[in-house]
């Protein structure tokens, strides 16, 4: 572990005036990941049936302690996942962190959102054994609303003596995105229309109007056991246009185009997660359960409800300094009252085996295989026939390979 870069010598070289100043040091760290995704059936996350390298992340951050209590930092991040990201750099986080005491501190700016055990580090491939986090809880489709927010985050650690300690975070804020984001993509998915009619949606603007919540992690007296709970309330609004193309008569009569500005909203989305993690030497066990509730509103009218849930159990074991194996079983249900498994679009089971190789302290490589049943988290737009109807397979395999370098 090395402290990478110090800018003090550069500043000192500017002359006696610079030397006389109290110049804070700046740490610079970065990472770059490149992945490959392939599925036997169903295009998942990318056009995976053909195999795809449209899966990467890059990040570089700069941070400095201005005083004992105050730290500033920023991370520039770019990613590509199929049609998402396209390697356009964005500010991932940009934080002023005032650590008043271990009991209470405050971060403000653009802050990573704490929910579940791993959401804050969901983009950091080197932080885990697996390539993908369990999608039943850390769904890529909601990633852009869940990764970070602009606002304020109070945090601290409450000592509990013989009953352990509690790490807490309380936060609130909002966010906005350009049109290319995972939430917009979900609304741009095709829906069933009468024969001959084509409907398309283009989202121009996505706003997280507000977001607030809290998380507690209880570090129990049983060494290595952490139990946690997170609650988040989110209000998401999307502005776009709906285009209907309707045949006006037999050919060669031109079809009629109806273009309507439309507002979509998830005005009262609640996400709750219960978490448990146990670490014993080289073994890490984890389990989480999440549920999401809310309404989908189109131009002020409720059109559907959301009542999904997901859970997973996972285990990872490091055999030696360079090799780690992980396994997970993850289940997602888009309607949590319905576990009949009659409609593959309403559930997704995922049994995962992951291998991680630490080639050296700065370079890792991973291989992963998923046995899938169901397709609830598969995009419709990536899985349509030539005639425009959706096409899904219930049983399928999904493979991932990824390498990451960091400094």
């Amino acid at each position, binding site marked *: 572990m090395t402290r990478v870069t110090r800018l003090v010598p550069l500043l000192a070289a500017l002359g006696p005036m610079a030397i006389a100043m109290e110049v804070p040091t700046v740490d610079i760290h970065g*990472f770059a990941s490149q992945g490959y995704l392939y599925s036997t059936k169903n295009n998942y996350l990318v056009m995976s049936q053909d195999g795809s390298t449209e899966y990467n992340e890059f990040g570089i951050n700069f941070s400095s302690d201005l005083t004992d209590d105050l730290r500033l930092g920023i991370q520039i991040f770019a990613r590509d996942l199929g049609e998402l990201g396209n390697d356009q750099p964005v500010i991932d986080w940009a*934080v002023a962190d005032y650590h008043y005491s271990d009991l209470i501190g405050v971060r403000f700016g653009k802050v990573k959102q704490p929910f579940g055990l791993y959401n804050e580090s969901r983009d950091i491939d080197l932080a885990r054994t697996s390539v993908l986090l369990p999608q039943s809880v850390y769904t890529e489709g909601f990633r852009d609303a869940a990764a970070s927010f602009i606002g304020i985050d109070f945090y601290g650690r409450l000592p509990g003596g013989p009953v352990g300690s509690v790490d807490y975070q309380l936060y609130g804020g909002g966010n906005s995105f350009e049109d290319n984001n995972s939430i917009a993509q979900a609304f741009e998915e095709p829906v069933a229309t009468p024969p001959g009619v084509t409907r398309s949606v283009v989202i121009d603007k996505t706003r997280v109007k507000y977001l607030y919540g809290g998380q507690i992690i209880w570090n129990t007296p049983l060494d290595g056991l952490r139990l946690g709970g997170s609650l988040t309330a989110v209000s998401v609004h999307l502005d776009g246009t709906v285009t209907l193309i309707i045949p006006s008569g037999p050919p060669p009569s031109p079809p009629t185009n109806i273009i309507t500005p439309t507002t979509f909203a998830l005005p009262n989305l609640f996400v709750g997660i219960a978490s448990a993690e146990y670490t014993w030497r*080289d073994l890490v066990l984890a389990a989480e359960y999440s549920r999401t509730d809310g309404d989908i509103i189109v131009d002020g009218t409720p059109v559907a409800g959301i009542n999904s849930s997901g859970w997973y159990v996972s285990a990872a074991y490091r055999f030696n300094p360079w090799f780690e194996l992980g396994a997970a079983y993850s289940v997602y249900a888009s309607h949590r009252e319905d576990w009949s498994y009659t409609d593959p679009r309403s559930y997704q089971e995922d049994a995962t085996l992951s291998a991680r190789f630490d080639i050296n302290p700065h370079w890792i490589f991973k291989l992963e295989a998923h046995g899938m049943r169901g397709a609830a988290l598969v995009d419709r737009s990536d899985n349509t026939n030539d005639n425009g109807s959706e096409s899904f397979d219930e049983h399928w395999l999904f493979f991932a390979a990824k390498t990451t370098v960091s400094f």
Partner: protein
Amino acid sequence: MFSTLPTRWWCIGLLAAFGAAVPASAADVLIAHPETAIDRIDHDSLRALFQGRKRALPNGQRVDLVVLAGGPVHERFLADHVHMTEAQFQTHWKKLVFIGQGRLPRSVASEADMVKLIAATKGTVGYIDAATPHDGVKVLVISD
């Protein structure tokens, strides 16, 4: 059959089996800059410090952590006091750095370098094997 072996052969056998695995000195000491105001730290606070969940000593004094780049003393300290393996420690701190919630501890190549740096730098805390000379630094007692 074994019970007929002389006791001294049992002793030699046990030493051969376990002696090589146990370092001559299996105790680490926590060291701090000599102007550090406290004399002892409880085990939980020490672990929280090296896990990045605390930034201050129990008296509120802010600290900068110093760690060894590797080796048996480093691994033993992590196992005994931080309850992490070397791999877990590395991954944990990198995660903190990349989510904007931590700054990597300073890393030094040897225990001699650790003593030299801590003796010269206010607010620093590190660890060495108890048998390593540590003039110029303060030893903090680790209590339960």
